[in-house]
């Protein structure tokens, strides 16, 4: 589905990613965990071509997407739900969703709009209730739903999500994670970046651990959960042991 080889990327002269190679197979949820400043967001931005890579190759859905424009990358079927939602706050929920279908519109598949819209509303019935409300007035959880919904409107096969649980109450975050699992069960492939490592690994099939621009550990979710280093650094296991 997606294969990244020796990717180096960053901003100006600052090298953030120092040679990253990852792959995601069709129908998988792959989690990338790591602390602040590890380069997780930069990795997603580079795959989405918002940031131009210094070197390395990105292959998405069988096409070499290295250095394409962001809009062409979306048209390939590779969507990003960015960190902090990035909605259009002064536009309504409905307008936000319609804008997400831009690649379909360009392919003259306008008639698919109602169908896609219905699909999003059945996944997030809450959005249907708020259809005509301005996006900026939604609650945090609803905004996250809208951000995911908007990314899904172009009917992407591959979806990247950057910190979807950020700033949400635990119960709402759990709801979002359930929806992400739903998406996978409906055949989509997901690359998930999370600080909330425990929740991410719970729904993921495999995971990578990133630290200062490098991948340091990779494995199945179970392996990562049981790995003592991962446990200490990202799952807070030591704390438990100390407190016992």
């Amino acid at each position, binding site marked *: 589905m997606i294969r990244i080889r020796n990717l180096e990327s960053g901003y100006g002269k600052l090298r953030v990613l120092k040679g990253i190679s990852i792959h995601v197979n069709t129908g998988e949820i792959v989690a990338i965990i790591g602390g602040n400043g590890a380069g997780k967001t930069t990795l997603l931005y580079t795959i*989405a071509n*918002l940031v131009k890579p210094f070197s390395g190759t990105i292959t998405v859905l069988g096409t070499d997407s290295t250095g394409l*424009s*962001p*809009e062409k990358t*979306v*048209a390939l079927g590779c*969507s*990003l739900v*960015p960190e902090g939602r*990035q*909605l*259009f*706050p*002064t*536009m309504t929920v409905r*307008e936000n969703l*319609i*804008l*997400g279908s*831009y*690649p379909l*519109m*360009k392919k003259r598949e306008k008639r698919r709009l109602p169908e896609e819209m219905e699909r999003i509303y059945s996944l997030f019935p809450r959005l249907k209730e708020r259809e005509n409300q*301005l996006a*900026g*007035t939604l609650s945090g959880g609803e905004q996250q739903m809208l951000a995911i919904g*908007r*990314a899904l409107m*172009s009917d992407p096969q591959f979806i990247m999500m950057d910190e979807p649980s950020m700033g949400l109450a635990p119960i709402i975050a759990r709801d979002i994670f359930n929806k992400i699992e739903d998406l996978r069960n409906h055949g989509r492939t997901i690359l998930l970046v999370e600080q909330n490592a425990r929740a991410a690994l719970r729904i993921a099939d495999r995971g990578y651990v990133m630290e200062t621009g490098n991948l340091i550990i990779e494995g199945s979710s179970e392996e990562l959960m049981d790995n003592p280093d991962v446990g200490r650094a990202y799952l807070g296991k030591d704390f438990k042991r100390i407190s016992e």
Partner: protein
Amino acid sequence: MSFEQVLQYIFSGITVGSIYAVVAIGFNIIYNSTGIINFAQGEFVMMGGIIAHSFTPTMPLFLAVVLAVVITTAVGSLIELVFIRSLKNPSVLRMIIITIGLSILIREIALHIWDEKIRALPFFTGSEVTSITIFGAHISPQVLWVLGITALIVVALQFFFYFTFTGQAMRACAANRKAASLCGINTRKMVNLSFCLSAAIGAVAGCTVSPLTQTHYAMGTPLAIKGFTVAILGGLGNSTAAVLAGLLLGLLESFSISLLPMAYKDVIAISILLLILFFRPGGLFQSRQIVALKSF
């Protein structure tokens, strides 16, 4: 002041006001898609009138106007391609300085191609002595042309921005450029389109007012200042409010002439600009909800 006189002032006020409004709308379109104030907006108005004037001896007026609008639009597009697009992560301030430079450049080029003479397009219908009497006030039919075309521009733009897909994409681009790219929108194309659109609108306005207010190479800057005042008064980015603000400023100016010496006319616009910037930077008509959601 007699009733007829009041009416006369009102008509001249809304004529001038609607031109300010159109210039302000030009500001708003570019501001909305790029966050910059294009101070060359007034020059688009000048170009429309002056180019159409050069064509009038050789072709019918309508064709000359269309050609002038097309050429001005092409210049607008070219400005974006050459001066704006090549900048990598420019600061807003830098882009604004560039547009001020461009406005000077265009003005000087116009002075070289044409000259400093004042010219005017022929009246669209009738001549300078034709007048229509409405409740005792005499107005030129050109005033009706100006009002009609302004109204048409405003309605067409509202339709474009709220009911067409490209218009919505342009609004998205204005709200959050990164998110717009992530939706698959070609943001560079949208920015270019916004320059084309505001150049075209400016040129149309330049042609319609030319018979009334005359056209010369340096008319752009004063118009840009008035248009900017109106854009701020209505709230940057809000085109419907710009129309109301434009009419308000036009009326204030035209009534001020009856009370104060003519020379004080511009003082009103500048004082309003300062007062608004001090006390209500969001503009007169901006809704609270929208202001709260926008980040300036």
